[in-house]
């Protein structure tokens, strides 16, 4: 006869409420782990998907995912000349936050190196890749921009031609793909008045120089468009992505590129590691600490619940001792109840998570290894929680029945 199941059956409502409470707590623990996994998945999604072998970034920087990185756009031509390199493409990444139809729209602008890269590698759920050099964009579904929608960014209007799902940056903002030149136009857009003032300032500075006075033509060029001034560099890009030829030695090519003093080279894995050890690491530790706290709270609540249930049975335990029940019978009763509560709570947490986690604003990834880890934790806290009740039960004297 299993006393634990008999007791549970007799106090079903109370046990059900306890299981629900524990289940919700465990769902939070499970969810925290899933949020952490989701953070990593979201953060590394672009790096994984974009398929570059090497990332070439501004010298002495950690790349665009860690800090500002600026390299000249023509760096890709230099890199293509390195033996073993199959291709190189410019990469632009920056975050913008604009108003659209009265709501705040925050997105990570990604530049595709047109015409080599149309974005065919981007996993679309609907629509197509970029079909022209300007005024088209691919947006993630999380940005809530429908296919065909037109959105004004800077001085230009862009049409949504493709939709992705789950393509977000490390901050959880949806990715939007443009050509590099459009991405730069959005990034470096300044109002017309600011352009006019800058050109006037340039002319004023040139007038203050001897060369400006002896070469009047320079003064006319100074207040013209920036692209007409060879002394001013064209807009720079965030990085250059390198694809290697099949069988090429990545370490050797990286070493060759690392010899150039104006750049730094990272493999894809190094770029991922930098990303994870940067901003994601603090979130990971914060979530980890919160998770530990939740486990401790769950243990305390379970322990108090089991203890209270044991206190309610003190008279019955005394009776069992009086009629000669071994300690194993009594320990088994308490331990089994704790394990049943823990197991059902865990199952409920998993079941509820199936419905709740997809509705979270950020990705929640529940992996089997995490589920097994949590199952072990639940087993541990169930045993730990029952110790208080067992300790109380062992103190009960048989003559308590007579009182």
């Amino acid at each position, binding site marked *: *006869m299993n006393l634990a199941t008999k007791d549970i*059956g007799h106090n079903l409502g109370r046990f059900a409420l306890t299981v629900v409470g524990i289940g919700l707590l465990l769902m939070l623990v499970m969810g925290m782990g899933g949020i952490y996994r989701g953070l990593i998945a979201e953060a590394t999604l672009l790096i994984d998907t974009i398929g570059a072998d090497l990332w070439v970034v501004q010298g002495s920087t950690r790349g665009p995912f860690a800090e500002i990185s600026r390299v000249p756009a023509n760096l890709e031509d230099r890199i293509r000349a390195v033996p073993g390199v199959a291709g190189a493409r410019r990469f632009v990444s920056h975050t913008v936050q604009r108003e659209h139809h009265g709501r705040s729209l925050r997105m990570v602008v990604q530049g595709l190196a047109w015409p080599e890269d149309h974005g065919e590698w981007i996993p679309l759920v609907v629509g197509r890749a970029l079909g022209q050099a300007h005024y088209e964009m691919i947006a993630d579904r999380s940005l809530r921009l429908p296919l065909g929608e037109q959105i004004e960014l800077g001085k230009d209007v862009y049409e949504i031609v493709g939709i992705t799902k789950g393509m977000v940056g490390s901050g959880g903002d949806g990715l939007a793909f443009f050509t590099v030149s459009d991405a730069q136009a959005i990034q470096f857009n300044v109002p017309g008045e600011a352009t006019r003032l800058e050109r006037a300032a340039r002319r004023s500075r040139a007038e203050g120089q001897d060369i400006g006075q002896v070469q009047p033509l320079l003064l006319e060029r100074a207040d013209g468009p920036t692209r007409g001034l060879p002394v001013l560099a064209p807009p720079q890009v965030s990085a250059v992505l390198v694809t290697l030829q099949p069988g090429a030695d990545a370490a050797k090519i990286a070493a060759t590129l690392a010899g150039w003093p104006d750049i730094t080279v990272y493999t894809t894995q190094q770029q991922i590691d930098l990303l994870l050890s940067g901003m994601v690491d603090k979130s990971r530790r914060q979530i980890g600490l919160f998770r530990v706290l939740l486990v401790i709270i769950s243990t305390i609540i379970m322990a108090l619940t089991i203890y209270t249930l044991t206190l309610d049975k003190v008279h019955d335990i005394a*009776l069992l001792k*009086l*009629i*000669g*029940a*071994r300690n194993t019978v009594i320990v088994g009763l308490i331990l089994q109840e704790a394990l049943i509560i823990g197991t059902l709570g865990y199952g409920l947490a998993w079941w509820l998570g199936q419905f709740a986690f997809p509705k979270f604003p950020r990705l929640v990834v529940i992996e089997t290894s995490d589920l097994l880890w949590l199952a072990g934790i639940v087993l541990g806290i169930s045993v730990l929680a029952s110790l208080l009740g067992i300790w109380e039960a062992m103190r009960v004297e048989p003559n308590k029945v007579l009182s």
Partner: protein
Amino acid sequence: MKPDHSKAPAIEAFNLTKVYGHGNTEVVAMNDVSLCVKQSEVVALLGPSGAGKSTLLTAVGLINPPTSGRIVIGGVPVLDADRPLVDLRSFRRKHLGFVFQKANLIPFLTAAENVQIAMEINDVTPRDAHRRTMELLDYLGVSDRANNLPDALSGGQQQRVAVARALANHPSLVLADEPTAALDSHRGRQVMELFRKVAHEQGAGVIVVTHDQRALDIFDRIFEMEDGRLRLGLTVAGGQPAPRGIRDTPE
């Protein structure tokens, strides 16, 4: 060690004394009490509150050992003062049965399960335990309530189930502490007659602590306790009053 049911008295207690506290707070709850109850004998233990009846009952029930004295149950020495000579819990499980003022049934077990659990903790197989449970409940007239939880039973039915539980493991001694206090006179008498029946038919010695003067004719012998001392009162079952004041120690 197994008690010898064929010859030995159900219980022999020698010079039991129980002292609580020490110094100025010392209280002698039981003073040099000796007692012998034979197999199939039903004895009553009377006395006012605080006389030491429950102290004696818990001492011979191996729940609350005496400060001094010796207890032999079914021929097996089990306690020498407060020093156990056997595993007391195991001995209680195998050889003693308890009935209390309240039935003290486990509320989350049915009537049958309350009886069955006493056997299962004594390593009786569930099948055998269930068979004997049904026999006992039938014997005690509550087999029709076997599947009811205790709170669905009347006080008398609960007490019958408690008696069945006490008899489950064929005890050599049944100890009952005011088992009829919560019952009306009719049901109280039924329970007392039940003790007599099980003692005579099952061969157990039965000690009943009671205040109920209406059913004294059921008992083979009556002991009175006062100020921690025990003395023989009346022998009524055979119709002959026992001489008062005779020594109550075992022969």
